[in-house]
């Protein structure tokens, strides 16, 4: 006979209480504006959309309770125009502003203006944003908190002797880079002290030839580095928890293309160390609201702090799917002064989620492709989440970023998530513009991706592969 069905005693999220705010203005556009509106609707919070003249017919405008045109199409005159955004909050009586990501989301001055005007900014304090936005200051803070930083020389290395000493401190392999450099010139990777002197001198003379400047510096050279980031949430009472990691190594020119949670490669002990380190880093700055600590993970399991993002990330849905926690709703609760609705021990990663960013770009050349969507079908069915503000007949304006939709697949394990992403891409229809969907479809079939053996440099290699076999579009 069937054994007892197990039912989790208390679900993760607390029962919905009174709305944290009466009315929130969303200082953003596109899918993230809509995402915040959805969260507000679920919580009974009234919403105010702001929009530029180019977004008059956008879905975030349509689905908000109120909407205010704040300027012409260029971001600088609308979505980045602080007085206009604040005035819109004032005339509509919005108590709080959610900045989404990009635009004003990490603008400390904007947060100060909000404070001066008595409007709650849904995010951390301007002090935290400043501290983490300044690279030197962020590193100093992290160093103090015992968070590992990428080892490197303190500026220019003048002599072979100095190079040998620094390399010894950093640990091999190291990379010598031209201060004025770029494009690989004046750059040498050294695996041991024996080869360092020659390589150091080569780098200098190459730098001299290429840039007319032979100064070089040194950094640790990471073997197949992976981009691992940890989602953090903290409240105003000093509670900080992590929601596990995301892996975002599939990126091109520092633009993430595919994100997943959990990472395919973290062993439990390493996951634990990275997540604990992230919590320590966040606590060191008294962090509250949602944030992300980004690390580079070496092949050998060493990881190094890169930066902290003091806002909700594009890729937050993968974490929401594996933890069941609604990050945006939690942001609102925290901003309203509520305690975190869950404790660290309530956070359980279950299953696997993958996100593909579908951009309005040529899938293999990445040239933006704004225009009108003449036919549209988003995949549905089990395990598929779509975050988008697009609709058939929508026009993608050329003024903003090119993201059309985030396609997120969830499965009981990574294999099922990949299978679902494949079939989601196979049943995605977007006509009238080019999108990166075919690129994603191809990556989903790639043995490296399936095996999880990729680094932040993988896309470069893959793009070379594509050039050699441009017809290999699997569809």
């Amino acid at each position: 006979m069937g054994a007892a069905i197990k039912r989790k005693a208390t679900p993760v999220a607390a029962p919905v209480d009174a709305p944290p705010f009466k009315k929130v203005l969303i200082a953003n556009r596109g899918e993230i504006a809509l995402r915040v509106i959805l969260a507000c609707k679920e919580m009974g919070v009234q919403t105010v959309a702001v929009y530029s003249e180019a977004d008059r017919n956008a879905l975030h405008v349509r689905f908000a309770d109120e909407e205010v045109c704040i300027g012409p199409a260029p971001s600088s005159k609308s979505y980045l125009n602080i007085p206009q955004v604040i005035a819109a909050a004032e005339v509509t009586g919005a108590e709080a502003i959610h900045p989404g990501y990009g635009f004003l989301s990490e603008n400390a001055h904007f947060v100060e203006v909000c404070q001066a005007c008595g409007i709650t900014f849904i995010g951390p304090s301007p002090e935290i944003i400043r501290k983490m936005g300044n690279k030197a200051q962020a590193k100093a803070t992290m160093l103090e908190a015992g968070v590992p930083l990428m080892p490197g020389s303190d500026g220019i290395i003048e002599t072979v002797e100095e190079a040998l000493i620094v390399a010894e401190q950093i640990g091999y392999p190291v990379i010598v880079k031209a201060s004025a450099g770029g494009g690989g010139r004046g750059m040498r990777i050294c695996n041991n002290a024996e080869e360092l002197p020659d390589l150091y001198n080569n780098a200098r003379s190459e730098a001299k030839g290429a840039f007319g400047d032979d100064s070089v510096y040194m950094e640790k050279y990471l073997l197949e580095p992976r981009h691992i980031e940890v989602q953090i949430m903290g409240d105003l009472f000093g509670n900080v928890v992590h929601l596990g990691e995301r892996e975002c190594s599939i990126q091109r020119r520092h633009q993430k293309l595919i994100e997943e949670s959990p990472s395919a490669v973290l062993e439990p002990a390493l996951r634990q160390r990275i997540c604990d380190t992230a919590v320590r880093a966040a606590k060191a700055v008294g962090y509250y609201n949602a944030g992300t600590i980004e690390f580079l993970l070496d092949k050998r399991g060493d990881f190094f702090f890169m930066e902290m993002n003091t806002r909700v990330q594009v890729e937050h849905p993968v974490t929401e799917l594996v933890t069941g926690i609604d990050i945006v709703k939690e942001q609102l609760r925290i901003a309203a002064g509520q305690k975190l609705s869950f404790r660290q021990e309530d956070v359980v990663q279950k299953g696997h989620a993958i996100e593909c960013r579908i951009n309005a770009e040529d899938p293999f050349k990445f040239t933006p492709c704004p225009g009108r969507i003449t036919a549209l079908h988003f995949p549905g069915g089990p395990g598929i989440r779509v975050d988008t503000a697009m609709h058939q007949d929508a026009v993608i304006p050329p003024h903003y970023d090119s993201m059309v939709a985030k396609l997120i697949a969830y499965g009981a394990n990574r294999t099922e998530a990949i299978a679902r992403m494949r079939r989601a891409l196979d049943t995605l229809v977007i006509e009238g513009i080019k999108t990166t969907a075919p690129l994603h479809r191809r990556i989903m079939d790639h043995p490296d991706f399936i095996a999880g053996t990729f680094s932040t440099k993988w896309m470069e290699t893959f793009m070379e592969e594509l050039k050699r076999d441009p017809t290999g579009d699997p569809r």
Partner: protein
Amino acid sequence: MSTSRKKSAAPKKPTPAPKPAALKAAAPKATPPRATPGGPLGLEEIKALIALVGREPFQEFEFEAGDMRFRIRKDGPAPMIQAAPMMVAAAPAPQPFPTMAAPAVQPTVPADEPGIHYVTSPIVGTFYRASNPTATPYASPGDFVKPGQTLCIVEAMKLMNEIECDVAGEIVKVLVENGTPVEYGERLFAVRIG
């Protein structure tokens, strides 16, 4: 943006001014004096055609030859003659979502009239017709105004921003209630240029 913050009342989608193309096209349409090369019919011939079509029980008539093109459509509330060269473009691109939106509330002015200019708000804020509640409004219907003249104040972030007139003419109508919020681009005054 309207006084009421309710969605239904908000002129979220101010109906774009009637397509200028249609209006403009009407005039030149009638004028072409003679058949241009590739425009096979002259004015008299077109007039004859129009008269003929008018008598016949037709609903629609389209004609194209060379770079000349015209269309006649009878009955219905729509304008009788919509002729526009290559009006294909004017054939409203399918825009289901805009039409799905709450019906746009027309600004409380007749329609765009020739000779009427609208002074719009360059910023979001609260509209005031006078410098303080007891002062005389800066501008009222019937007033003649000049470029640079202050017409009203839009308050934003505790700052009183004077909004200046950008044409010379006569104020025909004040389009926003005193003390109500306005959004970027919202029409404030109708001014008859002259």
